[in-house]
């Protein structure tokens, strides 16, 4: 079996791509169908101005879906991974910020109905950090400018 430049088997690379891509696709589906409920969850985070809440609720699920799909299929993998890593960093900041200030909120990460309370926020934070770690590792595996 072929190894990548760090000596890890290539299937780990593909497994992480599938994990990240499918996670984002899965996370987007319910939000695409129920933008109104997702908007209410965004409002619950208590950080966004009212004028931008609906736009975020409409657009964000499609950004997640498109980036996830592109990462899995290999169409524009670097831009899609950049978007995914950027979103993960933003989610980590938002969850961490609300934990820090003790603000109760529902994640709305995968479903707009299966909302979770503050007690689950720490596990969400850890999960997103692990996903970002995977995204960071993948970024090092894509073709680098100095290797071309």
């Amino acid at each position, binding site marked *: 079996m072929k190894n990548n430049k760090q000596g890890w088997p290539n299937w780990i690379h593909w497994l992480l791509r599938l994990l990240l891509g499918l996670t984002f696709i899965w996370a987007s589906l319910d939000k695409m169908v129920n*933008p109104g409920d997702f908007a209410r969850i965004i*409002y619950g985070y208590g950080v966004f101005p*009212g004028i931008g809440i609906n736009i975020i*609720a409409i657009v964000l699920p499609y950004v997640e879906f498109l980036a996830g799909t*592109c990462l899995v299929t290999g169409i*524009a993998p670097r831009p899609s991974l*950049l978007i995914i890593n950027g979103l993960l960093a933003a989610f980590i900041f938002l969850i961490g910020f609300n934990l820090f200030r003790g603000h109760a909120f529902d994640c709305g990460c995968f479903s707009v109905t299966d909302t979770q309370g503050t007690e689950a926020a720490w596990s969400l934070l850890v999960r997103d950090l692990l996903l970002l770690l995977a995204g960071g590792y993948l970024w090092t595996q894509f073709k680098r400018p100095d290797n071309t």
Partner: protein
Amino acid sequence: MPAEAMIKKDYYGVLILMVIAIVLSLGVNHFSSSGIALIGQWDGEKGVVTAKSKQDTVDSEIEINNPLRVRQMIDKGEVVVLDVRSKDVYDAGHLPGAFSFPLAEFDAVFPKLLDLVKKDSAILVYCSGIDCSDSHTFAGQLLAFKFTQVRVYAGGFREWQEMGFEIEKNEK
């Protein structure tokens, strides 16, 4: 490929994906039956917050957004108060004299409501708070059944509690 060219390519790639996502999402939202307005009502001072979706049940015209006025109405017995949260939550604490009519059990509890009130009775519906539209959904169904004096307490139980007003509990 030189580093600068690749960074530029990544930048344009991100830009193109974002433009596709924006155009696609706005298009689908426009034609979808569950689509929402581009700007919602997220000012709690103005009443129950809402994304203003095409299926929206929130009607600001029937809201009372003044806890003092609500307390006055309850103290004077001017209204029949309906709590549309779940029974467990109702038992843990509710507005004085409120009856439990959970929205999720509307079909089951509706006959009991007909025993309690007339179609021209003054009814005040509430749920958990400013971010809850269940009271509006319930009120909308009552209005559809030709009840004529249905109002919604926008602040709901959370505001009532924050005001320090009397709360009734059902002992288990």
